[in-house]
């Protein structure tokens, strides 16, 4: 199917991007493994949708199909990542304030 071909092309493209980012040391090995595993799993589910159906029935989603399980996981993962990002941004904001405060106090002290 066309959707499978497009998705696989996108997944392969993203996997190469992860590889190049790791090579340029823009991400750590742990991060590369996480994102690589995530996109690899997306590729597997697109190629073999029945696997997701089996996983859904295995964990007890009686009426849901595999694709529902994938959406649940994706939404949960997205919320978790947003939460992590917010915490990260907040810590950066606080560190910026510390630097700005340090400069303000130093400037006055040096006068």
């Amino acid at each position, binding site marked *: 199917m066309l959707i499978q071909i497009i998705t696989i092309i996108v997944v392969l493209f993203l996997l190469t991007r992860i590889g190049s980012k790791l090579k340029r040391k823009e991400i750590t090995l742990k991060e590369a493994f996480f994102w690589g595993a995530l996109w690899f799993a997306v590729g597997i589910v697109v190629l073999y949708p029945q696997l997701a159906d089996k996983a859904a029935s295995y964990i007890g989603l009686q009426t849901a199909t595999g694709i529902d399980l994938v959406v649940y996981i994706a939404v949960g993962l997205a919320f978790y990542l947003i939460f992590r990002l917010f915490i990260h941004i*907040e810590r950066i904001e606080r560190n*910026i304030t510390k630097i700005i*405060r340090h400069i303000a106090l130093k400037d006055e002290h040096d006068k």
Partner: protein
Amino acid sequence: MDLFMKVLGEDSMKTIVIIPAHNEARKIYNVVQSVISRGYDVVVVDDGSSDATADEARRAGAVVLQHYINRGYGAALETGNAWVLQSDYDIIVHFDGDGQHNPDEIKNLVNPIVREKVDVVIGSRFIGNAQSMPILRHALIKLAIIFTWIFSGIKLSDAHNGFRAFSRRALEVIECRQDSMSYASEVIDQIAEHRLRIGEMPVTIEYTDYSKSKGEGNIKKILVGMRFIWGKVIK
């Protein structure tokens, strides 16, 4: 020594007024002058203003600490607090830079600390002569009072009043991390956490067109509450 201090009263206690200011060039000179003329030292924290706030404050005789970029009301006050704690001041007052606080009332906030009755004094608009304000704003303040009560266990008659006084001992233990207006909630939370003695004194707030234009809308006030909770989550 304590008794000696009590006999001498306010005059023997070194008091400083911290004024956070962001783009207040129009008002800051008069505000600083009005406080200095009543015998208090002043430190203005210019929070990344793009106008001549710092120059005007210096011209009026204040010590000026400058944030190169805007970090918010709480961050500015904490910078002022950090500077004051490097000096030998006994009492620290927080005072707004937009001219809505009355400098004659500083002594009312300072006196209970001089007499060692309390460690912190918060100004209240609702003790004594209640001031008129829009119903919605009044309802929001009442909600904020309940919010503060739930989180800190301290029941105040006003919320988010920026006119406060601290003993040096109090300010040494208070540690606020929130940069924004949610500082006002966090400071009450810290007072409760460190079991400091808190009092309230009536203050009058002069709502001018200028101060209203600098103030926050009702929705922003609600967001401040949410910001405070978020700040607590990632403490």
